[in-house]
């Protein structure tokens, strides 16, 4: 793109942003596409390549679940159990949290192969085992930082700092939304006692317009912030209020000629539509009992996360581009065995149900699903808590960890990457966080190097200055 052309597109984007910024823009984009005119407006952005998926559901396991006890069996660990880690494993590793004096802690769990692929899962994840042939397991993830919040930011925003847009914001910015009455990027947190460490910095729009920010939905409250009318104002009265307001604003538009007022009117209309549609979205009465049971909504343990999983499916059905679910109690520095049992009981069944449900509805092909945390955990017992049986835990491990992907664009039933006998260092196909991000964008038809935004003098992108699409995980 030459300079003038660049300015031209920037100009148009500015025009769009100011003319009908926010979800207004997105909705407008949606309307325009239906009119077949979008190409003129946003052609420079995306798709760069043929998209494999339309939507993303990201199951973010914050706190970092232990790969050794769930999805990455290392049976040979028993050989060293209770002894310090042989030195050669630690070679070249630089990290505050890795203390070579710690003792290897073999997993107390048992594993078994599942499906035709024979992928192994621990006895805490039988439901995930049942979808083994739908997913691609990656054992060679690595990241740059070993503290939760920076690592979560790196995973979500591409840098271990505040201030950059989250992946969902980038996707919303690049692809727009396909629905007029819901935001393009939604975040669902299940109330498991505490919020996520970094809070909303994980779904920040950074320097992108506020319309691309992740909007948190809560299944137990009003869903969207300020969605409910003030007490005493019913739907009829709300409609009348917006009608009167719309007429007065339209009158002012005639007087000033400022098109921003037109988009303000449209944004009130969309707000009203949202008020009408969100309760329907959140009302599961149109779901069969079988579906609800599948997600575990018949049991207290599985209901919070299961509700969010079902909600995520309902959202992508309605065209929400990027749904991110947080389950944030995986940070097991001690009592790992006990805590993993609890967290798996809460999440295993709903995660598997989501994949099966998407598949039976023909949505899995167009929905990319990712399950994983911000880093992994160590093969040793956590050094801080001593070696009391039952008290063992695992520390943070940024150099090798596992996660899985499924759905649109992903090769099902495959395992990618490998680590050494203790899972300390990657031996095959290292995949950095930026590679994962590049791959996710690729599945959506976006070249990660070309989705950029000029900020403080730089053309900034999600993958910072790195990232390679991981061909091995692609179908």
């Amino acid at each position, binding site marked *: 793109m*030459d*300079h003038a*052309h660049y*300015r031209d597109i920037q*100009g148009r984007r500015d*025009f769009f*942003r100011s003319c009908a*910024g926010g*979800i207004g823009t997105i909705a407008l984009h949606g309307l325009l596409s239906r*009119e077949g*005119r979008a190409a*003129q*407006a946003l052609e420079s952005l995306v798709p760069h390549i043929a998209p494999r998926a339309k939507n993303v559901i990201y199951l973010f396991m914050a706190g970092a679940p232990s790969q050794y006890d769930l999805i990455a069996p290392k049976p040979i660990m028993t050989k060293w159990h209770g002894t310090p880690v042989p030195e050669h494993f630690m070679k070249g590793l630089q990290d505050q949290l890795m*203390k070579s004096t710690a003792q290897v802690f073999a997993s107390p769990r048992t594993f078994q192969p599942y499906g035709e692929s024979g992928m192994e899962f621990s006895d805490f994840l039988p439901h995930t085992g049942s979808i083994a042939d739908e997913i691609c397991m990656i054992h060679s993830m690595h990241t740059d930082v070993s*503290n*939760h*919040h920076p690592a979560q930011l790196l995973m979500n925003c591409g840098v271990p*700092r505040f201030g950059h847009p989250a992946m969902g914001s980038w996707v919303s910015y690049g692809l727009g939304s396909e629905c007029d009455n819901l935001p393009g990027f939604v975040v669902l947190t299940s*109330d498991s006692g*505490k*919020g996520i*460490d*970094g*809070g*909303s910095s994980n779904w920040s729009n950074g*320097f992108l317009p*506020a319309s691309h920010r992740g909007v948190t939905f809560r299944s137990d*409250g009003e869903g969207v912030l*300020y*969605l*409910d009318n*003030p007490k*005493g104002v019913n739907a*009829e*009265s*709300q409609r*009348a*209020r*917006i*009608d009167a*307001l719309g*007429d*007065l*604003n339209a009158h*002012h538009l005639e*007087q*000033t*000629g400022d*098109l*921003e007022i*037109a988009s*303000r009117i449209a944004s009130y*209309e969309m707000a009203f*539509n*949202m008020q009408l549609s969100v309760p329907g979205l959140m009302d599961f009465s149109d779901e069969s009992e079988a579906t609800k049971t599948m997600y575990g909504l018949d049991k207290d343990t599985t209901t919070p996360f299961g509700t969010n999983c079902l909600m995520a499916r309902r959202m992508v059905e309605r065209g929400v581009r990027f749904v991110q679910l947080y389950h944030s109690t995986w940070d097991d520095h001690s009592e790992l065995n006990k805590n993993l049992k609890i967290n798996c009981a809460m999440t295993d069944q709903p995660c598997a149900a989501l994949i099966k449900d998407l598949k039976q509805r023909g949505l899995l092909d167009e929905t990319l699903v990712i399950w994983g945390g911000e880093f992994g955990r160590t093969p040793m017992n956590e050094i801080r808590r001593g070696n009391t049986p039952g008290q063992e835990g695992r520390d943070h491990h940024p150099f090798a960890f596992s996660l899985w992907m499924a759905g649109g664009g992903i090769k099902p039933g495959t395992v990618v990457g490998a680590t050494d006998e203790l899972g300390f260092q990657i031996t095959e196909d290292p995949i950095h966080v930026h590679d994962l991000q590049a791959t996710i964008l690729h599945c959506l038809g976006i070249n990660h*190097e*070309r989705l950029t935004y*000029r900020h403080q*003098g*730089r053309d900034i992108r999600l993958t910072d200055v790195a990232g390679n699409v991981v061909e091995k995980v692609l179908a």
Partner: protein
Amino acid sequence: MRKTTGILAFILFLATVQYPLAMADTPSPPLRFNRDILPLLADHCFKCHAADSATRKGGLRLDTEEGARSLLKSGVAAIVPGNRDTSALFQRITATGDDRMPPEETGDELSLEAIERLGAWIDGGATWETHWAYVAPKLPATPQISDAAWVRNPIDAFTLARLEEAGTGPSPETDRRTLLRRVSLDLTGLPPSPEAVEAFVLDNRPDAYDRAVDGLLASPHFGEKWARWWLDLAGYADSDGFLSDFHRPQAWRYRQWVVDALNENMPFDGFSIAQIAGDLVPDGTIKEKMGPGFLRNTLANREGGADLEEYRVMQTTERVISVGTVWLGETLECARCHDHKYDPISQREFYQFYAFFNNADEVNIDAPLPGQREAYEAAWATYVAAREALLEPVATELADLQAQWEEKAQWAADHPGEGNYHWDRAWEVLGLVWGQSYGEGQLEGTYISRKPIAERTVEERIRLQDYFFARGSLVNETRFSELKVRELVAQIDELKKALPPMSRAPTMRASRELRPTTIMHRGDFRVPGEAVDLGTPEILHAFESDGTPDRLDLARWIVDRQNPLTARVTVNRLWQELFGRGIVVTSDDFGVRGARPSHPDLLDWLAVTFVDSGWDIKALLKTMVLSATYRQSSDARPELRQRDPANILLARQNRMRLSAEITRDNALAASGLLHRAIGGPSVRPPQPDSVTKEAFDQTWVAEEGPDRYRRGLYTFIQRTSPFGQSVNFDFPDTNRACTRRERSNTPLQALNLLNDVTFFDAARSLAQETLGQVTLDQRLDQAFLRCVARLPDETERARLHQFHGEEKERLIHQSERVPDIVGNFESLPADSDSAAWVMVCSVILNLDEFNTKE
């Protein structure tokens, strides 16, 4: 809503209209390097052919004249002045296949026009210029214009010249009501009262507007409004940021410092020096020492196990980047990991600049509020004596234990993994956790512990001892319980209760021991490179120091009148606040990849005038708001919509949605709810629980009483879950200096204004304040005057009569809704008429006009 559908169709129509480039980009002969050539080279070539030696390809650099003309390995020069055909650059940009530049795989391409432009420039002699922003501004002559009558001050001559050049002219002056509302919102962030509007409209004196402006500049609300402008740059927040995001209950002292400085019209050079190095000013006052609160807005990680040095380096780096952005408009960050790819700033220079901040440590100081000092100092002496008496029987043994504890903690930190693992993090935790939830300086605990005991102040000894009592038991659990440390602490806590409050403030101080600074390979603190001395970028004016150079010298260098950037960058941001768009639209980047000024001479005139005035902010703002350019109507000009959609020419004022805070302030003020107290700690207005639950275990107990209705400036800023309404209205991320806010327009904003309890309370209050009027028309008059400084016209009147009538009718039949609508407002009768009037008021508070500066 037939009308709305029609408007959507209208937007669709407009969105498909093609319009030409912004006219600023069309080159007109003769070609000028800065305007026409440098942007092309920067955008298409510098990534591989500029200052960054590590990624430079083919040994060619095009960011310097020398580089572009020197012979390449191939024996030819990239640029041979006067001859495009023998210039390698031109050959390569017109080549096909592998020789083509930029390479095809980059996806980058030069347009035919750009290629021709480069060719013409080479043929014309390839004249070079230093990037405009690196040359100190000189006072330009005011241009000749034909319509001299329109010009009120030199600003107008510059803008009018540009308009006339484009064959058009300015808009008429806006009406007096709109003007007063505009300038009130701009200078104080609050709408004018109906009385002020009427008085201004009736004031026939020729200087009526000047007087109104003077009154606004003298208002204490001026400082509140412009403090927010500055706090965006400072990245101010009331919490740490990372992980648990602990509170910083003392942070507000810096915010108040800014409010006061702006109200007192502290000259901008002094304002700057105080914030960068006020702690180093010889014989500085407490007020000066509080200035570096600016540098304390960096994030902090208090997670046990975080690396002390990693986070200290991160904070120092952020300080460097922030100073670069705020004062120099430079993207120094680009030079952190490698030489800057576009601007002539090397990685070495980044670390030379970094060195100024590498020897600054965080500290909080006693900064008594009026009346606190004497009572505190008197009680302090008593407290110290009582404490010593209490501990006296076991003092020696405690001191001994503490010495062992300090030694072991330090030893373990210096010998990781070698000793008992219980000690592994004691030292880090002392540094990180110190003063947690009080927003005290990080690393201060380790700083004190490194001092020989004899050199520690009484206060330092006591604070470290308190920490030791709370967290040092691992040195000898048995002795701790035998000495009854826990019981002693309880008794000390009792003694502390007798201490009256002493307010503290965050600032910086020079480090005890000088840390050498090195280049960090790829910005990684674990891979130090060559050592560097303090220094400033060579492209800018010379750095001078009387003795050993330090941060204070740097601060003085930044506001030296030879500095080509500081004044321009600052006046540009003040302009941006008033006009919605900077003269340099990239107000964060004055480097070669930044936008060129739309009105270069105007920018320089403002910059030089600003410095000549003694860096007088209020005087500069006054000049701006008194200009005819500022006073223009903001109505759209359809004939310019296609030619100049961004209003670069300033052919009118811009209509702008109010910022997050002013959206709130405006509703509270117009409705009579605003509690106008100035200053004090942050407050927590009501917001939905779902916002606070986003973050780690945060609680948000909404204020009861008048603090519910304070200005947005005072709302507590929790970095990991910022205030819901603020976020909806583009409140910026607080991590980095924000130089310009987005102004989006979303349905979430509509929901916010319609349904948020604060805004509905404003509707109730507005209803209550206007209900005393006899007729509905009189009420409407009052409400409109309060909100939009004018009376409603007939269309508006009729529509609101209709809405009121219909809503009242509904409420008569649904009377159970009435008490909920009127709420707890005592003078608001719970009847259908009042409730319907509340609904009308809420419509008025949602008007686009109300939430916009016209």
